[in-house]
Each structure stands twice: as C-alpha cells, then as structure tokens.
C-alpha cells in the first residue's frame, strides 16, 4: 500500500474532464495510461483532479474529451520538448492590448500576437453565421405571419359585413366602425402576443433542457431577454393593428348596400 502510494506520488498528475471521468468510471487517485498516438506506449499518470470545462459553444458539437497535463509532461509525451501552441499574456494595469500586440508583431518572426478580443471575434464567426441564419428565418417568419394576419383579419372583418351594413343604416359613423374593428384587432393581437410569449418561454425552456442533456453541457441554447420580448410584442401588435386597420378601412369604404348584398 505504502509502495503503491510512493509510486503514485512520483507519477505525473493529470486532470480529467467530468464527462470523461464518468464515461470511464475514473476517480481521483486512479492510475491511467496517456499516449500521444494509439500505437505508442504512452506514460502512466495519476488522476489528480476532475474538472468541469468552461462551456464552449465552438466545441459542444465535437463532443471531445478534455485532459489537462503539466506542460513539461505533455511536451515529453508529444516528443516536442520546449514547443507550445501559444502564450497567454496578462498586461500591467493601464497597458493597451492593441499597442502591445503591435509592438510584438513588429519584431515577430514565426508568430503573431493578437489581443484576446480579436481572437474571440474571429472564433465567434461561426456563431455570427448562425445568428445571420436565425435572423433570415425570423424575417421569413415575420413576412409569413404578416400575410397570414392580413388574410385572417380580412376574413374576420368580412364576416361582419352585414353587421357593418346595419350599423351604417342606423347612422353609425364610418369612424366609429373603423375604430371598433381596429380596437378588436388590437385586443386580438395583444392576447396573441401574450400567449405567444408564454409559448416562447416554454419552448425555450424545453430547448435548453433537451440540448443541455443531449450535449451534457450547461450552455444556454435559447435565451429570451426583456428586449426580445418587447420587440416581439411590439412587432406583433404593429402587424396585427396594421392588418386590422387595412381590413377595416376596406370594409368602411364599401357602400352599405353592397355590404348588405344588394348593391
């Protein structure tokens, strides 16, 4: 037991990602063999820690496992001593990342320096494309909804032709009929918006629950902000009111006898 502990103390330590530990039933203290290639012998190491990697949208679909080693251990494993992929640099307070990067690049050979912000922007290109795609789908959905709304409003208003005719016969003004129909359209649009918002929250919660389970991540896939709610409600109110107003205007412009079916 003591010998085993002594041997373990001399072995390099690795930290394994929680998913990997779960899938291979690893615990802290277990001994593993880590190799650079499938055919090489590799090195024995002790699991020193189990960690949860920071949620990374770029890698969630790849489902890779993460392992952390001390730099010299990894370099030795890869047979590439004193070689690294990158340096991370923390600046003194007040120092500008852009100007430091510029100075470094002026004397650089075989490497380039980037402010972290630039890396983040570059690596988020994928998500910018996805955002553009979502926006395009949203635009198409809005157009479809607008057409659909206009059609339904027209149908609903036309159903009231006879009522509108009778109201005109008894002297109710066009303005009053128009206002009543637009108010009705506004109420329908508002009610629909509220229901739609509730459905959106529900669907968002379901989406997050499903994909978080599927990809074993704590990333949020759907996130509804107050701004999004406000925008959606405002847009649907606008569309509903617009459609209702158009349909109502068409109705009140028609002669009462035509509405009655005798024109």
């Amino acid at each position, binding site marked *: 037991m003591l010998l085993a502990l002594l041997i373990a103390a001399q072995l390099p330590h690795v930290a394994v990602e929680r998913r990997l530990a779960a899938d291979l039933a690893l615990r802290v203290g277990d001994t593993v063999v880590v190799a650079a290639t499938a055919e090489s012998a590799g090195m024995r190491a002790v699991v020193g820690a189990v960690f949860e990697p920071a949620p990374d949208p770029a890698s969630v679909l790849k489902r890779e496992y993460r392992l952390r080693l001390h730099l010299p251990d990894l370099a030795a494993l890869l047979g590439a001593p004193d070689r690294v992929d990158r340096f991370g640099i923390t600046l003194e307070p007040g120092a500008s990342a852009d100007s430091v990067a510029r100075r470094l690049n002026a004397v650089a*050979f075989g490497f380039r320096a980037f402010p972290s912000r630039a890396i983040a922007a570059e690596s988020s290109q994928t998500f910018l*494309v996805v955002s553009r795609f979502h926006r395009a789908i949203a635009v198409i959905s809005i157009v479809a909804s607008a057409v*659909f709304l206009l059609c339904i409003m027209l*149908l609903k208003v036309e159903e009231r032709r006879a009522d509108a005719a009778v109201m005109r016969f008894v002297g109710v003004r066009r303005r009053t009929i128009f206002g009543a129909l637009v108010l009705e359209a506004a109420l329908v649009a508002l009610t629909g918006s509220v229901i739609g918002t509730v459905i959106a929250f529900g669907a968002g919660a379901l989406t997050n629950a499903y994909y978080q389970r599927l990809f074993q991540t704590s990333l949020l896939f759907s996130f509804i902000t107050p701004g999004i709610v406000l925008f959606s409600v405002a847009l649907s109110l606008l569309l509903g009111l617009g459609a209702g107003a158009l349909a109502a205007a068409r109705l009140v412009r028609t002669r009462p006898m035509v509405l009655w079916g005798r024109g």
Partner: protein
Amino acid sequence: MGWGFRNLLRHPLRTALSLAGIAVAAAMLLDMVMLSGGIERSFARLLLSRGYQIRVTPAGTLPFDAEATLPNASRIRDRLRADPGVAAAGAILGANVHARRGDSLLTLFAYGIEPDAQGIYEVESGRDLHRGEADGLLLSGAAALALGARVGDTIRLTGRLDPQLAGSGADRTLVTRGIVRWLYDYRGQRSVGLALGTLQEMTGRAAGDRVSLFMVKARDGVDPAALAAALRRQFPGAAVNSIADLVAAFRVRMLYFRQLSYILGTVSLLVTVLLVATLLTITVNERLGEIVTLRAIGVSRLHVVAQLVAEGAALTILGAAGGVALGLATARYLDAILTSFPGLPAAFSFFVPRADAIALAGAVLICTGTLAGLYPAWRASRLPIAATLRAEAT
C-alpha cells in the same frame, strides 16, 4: 361541376392573400425539406467526387480533424494495396508552410500528395504533378493570387520557422506546374500541393514516415462497407471510415440544422392547416344559405363535402406551386448565409434542390391543406337544412 373551385374567384383579394400565405408556408416547408438532407447529400457527393469510398485516419479522429498523424505510411500503403478489395490507395499529409512575397510572410496550407492515387483536387490549368516529381508545386487560385504566381513560376517554401533565431528551416524551391481546385478547401483558402515525400522532409515528418490520412478506392463489385470492416480489423490502431460512417459522424455535428428543419417544417404545415381551415370555415359560414339549398334540392352530403374539400385543395395546390418558386429563391439566400461558415469546403451546399424534395414537400402540403378543409366541409354537409334556412331568413 366544380363550383368549389370557382368560389375562389368570388373574393379575389381574399384568395390572393390566402395563396400568398400558403406560398410562404410552402416555401418554408420546401426549404426545410431541402435542409434536412441537403448538407449530408452534399457532403457525401463531395466525399465520393473522385471515387474514393474509404478514409483511414489516426484513431479517434476524422480527416483533418486534428493534427494527429499515422506513422509508417509506406508500410500501411503497401498493406492497403495488397488487399484484394482495394483498387487504389493514396496518402495525404496536411501541414502549414510559409512563403515570402516581398516583406510579407504568407502562411499556406500544404497537401503532401501522391498524384497517381489522389482524390482531393482537380487540375484547372497547367498540369498535374508526375509520379515522383519532387520539385513540382500545385496552387489553389487564392494561393496563386496571394503569391502573384503563374504556371511555370518558381516559389520558395519554408517548412519550419524558428521564432527564437528569427530564421527558417527546411526551405525548398518548387516550380508551379498547375493551378488546381482543392475539393475540400473553403472559399479563398490558400493551398498548395507538393509531393508527399517533399512535404514530409520539410515538416520533419520524414523520420516517422507520417501522413494525415489515406484515401482508399474499392474495386468494382466490392462493397465499400464490407471492405471498410475488413480494413478495420487489419488496422486496429487507425480509424477506418466508409462514406456512410463519415456522413453519420457529420450528421451528429449537423444535428441542430436537421432538428431545426423538422421544427420549422412542422410549423409551416401548421400554418397551412390554420389558414385553409379558417378560410373554409369563414367561407362556409358566409354561404350557409347556398349550402343548405343545395342539400334541399337533393345534392348529397358527399358531394357538398367533395366540393368544399376541392376548394381547399385547389387553394393549397396553387399556393404550393407559388411556394416552389419562392422556396428555391429563399433557399439560395439561406444557403449563401450558411455556406459562409468559416472553414466550410466551398463545394458544400446546405440547401440542395432535388426533385424528390420538391415532390415530397408539395405532396405533404397538399395532403395537409386538403385534410384541413375536411372538418369545415363535414360540418357544412351536416347543417340542419330547415333550422339553417330559418336562421338565414331572420
């Protein structure tokens, strides 16, 4: 007598708006049907474009997915070519190299290739490399532009840079033999191709005879999946994937788009159902007197249902026809957005127009729209004649 169809002309604006609504829903449905299988088909087509059905890569990796390499490439090659099911096998090595243009140092992606067994490029101008041609170079269009090079020009490439010494190592002078289209390159990628052995030497991989992957072509009549299974047993330390395996792995990565396509496709159908059902319900409500009169004079319930359902079906069919044109146009727009993913091969498409996709989307939409009219039509046929006539008279 088709009075159901003619009723669509009674209210032209209403009909036009309904058609527009159905067309947009149809367009969305068609796009989603194309999206649901588009990129996989596009990917499979690309993988098979040169006829190589199997890829052999380091264990746990997909082609060019990681920097891992396979050692002892010559031995692997010989064993692959010795297999009776294999018609051709070629190795590829991928690595970064550098070239100077003026004061600038350009980084290029280099493919180390075996010209007599390659499946990753097509020559557009000039010529291909000869077997064993160690100093030949192939450029992508973007690389040629960046280097200001044409066929026949000499380019000096560097395999290793030493930042500490500010120097380079493993330089080679190569002659541009051809401008090629690299099948797996993203738009604007600066890629070069040179003999495998030359690139191995330049990047320090000659000692281990390391390559990134092998492409394998099965003989005519040999099932690629069976051959892949056999090669898997022969090479337990490597990942052997047939086209189907690669597409399946790719499908997992594209899961989001497939699921999105199912959800949006379903929403489109729902919109169609709502639109057609609402339109027919309101239309029926407006024509109650007409409908019960028909029943009174002896028109059967079935006939009434048939005419009203036909009205809904006509609306859906016409809307679907408009939706096909709109859907193809929006598909191009959406495809242009998605194919701008960084690193995505330029040959990929997310929305692949296919006759069977159009037919499927159309058939599903038409069936759905037709069925949506069934309930209002059924209700109309069951209206109590006398009670309805009484109500109409008041």
